[in-house]
């Protein structure tokens, strides 16, 4: 029983790291970026190729899995995304889904369509027993990393000057600009962090979720569910939603395997019927 909860938390945490970048761009910048999964895929491929082909230790690839997608994010934001901030959501959706198709085809062409594998160090494999619960080491590692990320994000957003500037820029762009806040730079940085987190999530998740060129499509739906259920106005919303969905998914599949696949969708429908603005968001 507790093992199921533990697995659920680990899975939820993973969903959160993958989706929180999307919560940031969608919730804070009000930009529908369906290409989010492509950044996650980039991170995953960096980790997989470096560990399996070049023998780089897994931990050393994680900073790169964050940094490279972040840099790609900055370049794309400066050249492409910023032109679409003022456009309708439909334009943004069409634009970003186009990017996903291009990313999928590019990876397929350059690296091939087969599954890629991350090589983990020995100390992250296997499991230990703690207080009668079987705990997978890699899953504990994911929980620890994600926990740190959640706390850091929450602190940056609520306690730092950058966080208050970002929130100001989102609330009213014109006034924020009038007060001398460099909205452009803030958005670029935020976008970079969001993309970087997606990359990190992709690298952490490749071991559990698998990694091939269709990754952005396979998991897009999960990112969107997390963000919809959690609401987009804070970090805590998507975080709690990820945990809820992760535990519900794992427990549902364990206890009622025949219906297991539908549990998270049912949950999403119920939540949206009761609270259309998301579980933890203020009503607008």
């Amino acid at each position, binding site marked *: 029983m507790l093992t199921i909860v533990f697995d659920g938390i680990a899975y939820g945490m993973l969903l959160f790291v993958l989706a929180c970048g999307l919560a940031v761009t969608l919730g804070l910048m009000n930009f529908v970026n369906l290409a989010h999964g492509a950044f996650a895929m980039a991170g995953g491929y960096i980790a997989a190729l470096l560990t399996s082909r070049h023998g780089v230790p897994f931990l050393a690839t994680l900073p790169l899995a964050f940094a490279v997608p972040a840099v790609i994010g900055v370049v794309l934001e400066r050249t492409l995304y910023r032109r679409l901030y003022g456009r309708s959501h439909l334009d943004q959706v069409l634009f970003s889904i186009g990017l996903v198709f291009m990313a999928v085809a590019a990876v397929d062409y350059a690296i*091939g369509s087969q599954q890629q594998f991350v090589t983990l160090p020995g100390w992250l494999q*296997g499991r230990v027993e703690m207080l009668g619960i079987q705990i997978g080491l890699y899953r504990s590692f994911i929980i620890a990393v994600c926990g740190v990320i959640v706390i850091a994000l929450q602190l940056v957003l609520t306690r730092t000057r950058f966080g208050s500037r970002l929130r100001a820029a989102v609330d009213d762009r014109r006034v924020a600009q009038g007060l001398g806040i460099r909205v452009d730079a803030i958005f670029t940085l935020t976008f970079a962090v969001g993309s970087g987190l997606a990359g990190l999530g992709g690298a952490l998740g490749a071991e559990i979720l698998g990694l091939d060129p269709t990754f952005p499509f396979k998991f897009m739906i999960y990112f969107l569910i997390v963000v919809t259920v959690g609401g987009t106005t804070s970090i805590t919303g998507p975080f709690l939603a990820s945990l809820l969905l992760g535990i519900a998914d794992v427990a549902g599949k364990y206890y009622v395997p025949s219906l297991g696949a539908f549990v998270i969708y049912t949950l999403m429908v119920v939540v949206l019927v009761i609270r259309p603005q998301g579980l933890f968001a203020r009503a607008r």
Partner: protein
Amino acid sequence: MRRRLLVIVASAIGVLASLAAVQGQEIVKIGLILPMTGPFTSTGRQIETAARLYMQQNGDTVAGKKVQLILRDDTGVADVTRRIAQELIVNDKVTVTAGFGLTPLALATAPLSTQAKVPQVIMAAATSTIPDASPFIVRSTFTLPQATIPMAEWAAQNGIKKVLTIVSDYGPGIDAEKAFSGTFAKAGGQVDNLRVPLANPDFSPYLQKAADAKPDAIFVFVPSGVGAQVMKQFVERGLDKSGIKLIGTGDVTDDDILNGMGDAALGTITTHHYSAAHDSPENKAFVDAFKKAAGGIRPNFMAVGGYDGMHLIYEGLKKTNGAGGEALVNAMKGTSWTSPRGPVTLDPQQRDFVQNMYVRRVERVGGELYNVEFATIPNVKPR
């Protein structure tokens, strides 16, 4: 300047001359339809390499006619396959169509083959009923029950009494589940079934359930890429240490990706018709030549399907003197030889191979992971 012009003219004459030579000779065209892009690219590349290798080794002339391979990419989408097959049959006038990476692709083309009386050689798709779709279909790979039933028999004979099957919830998965459960229950074993959604990111709840059920073995059938995740999570959950065996058909430990799966795959027991580690002179020669042609990549069961498919076509054409149609299908029936996978015979009724199934264990050989065969079940019928 004048010199360069001379070279151009000379080479143009050369090209024309060779064209004329080819036209003087009759041409037999083989339309090879494969997923060369998209999620099943690996299937396409393996078969293409093997088919070209076969032609390179056996020459491109059969019964005095020049064989021409026309490769087309169907991206793994059934309506594209059908359209390409139609173009190949009507415009290019191919004698045979071949390839077909997935079951729907083969079935979509079957009515065309019947109408146009063009033999269709299935090199990859493995659903058992495919040859029923057209009398012009022959198949050079294997069928799912052909690999699954020996697994169930082997398990029952080797002290495994209780099995939990975990299959992806789609056609081939359900096929495998039924074939395994039926045979294993008949042999006196106890089976429980678990179906996993096809789009399933995390296997932990299912494997946890397996851990709690404490069977002697877990039988797995999932699409080949996903197999690695199952194995990794199997080990992560400590199931290997609790004495539960992981068994399945050879799709799960596909030679193409096996080596990347890492130590988690070690000890997995599967039944299949081909392993790159099959110990025979025919296979050694095939693996060496394939690796040379493919830049170090080893052949998998798709490649051997392509290679043997080409052999079927060549042998058939020899008998018919290059004619196609019904005569070619009939000529291919009953063809029997020693392929890299072992002895095969094309069953005249079912138009599928009667072939050996091998029980294999994943082991590390010379630093790489291979499916090492340790038992043979001879002459298994396709259905």
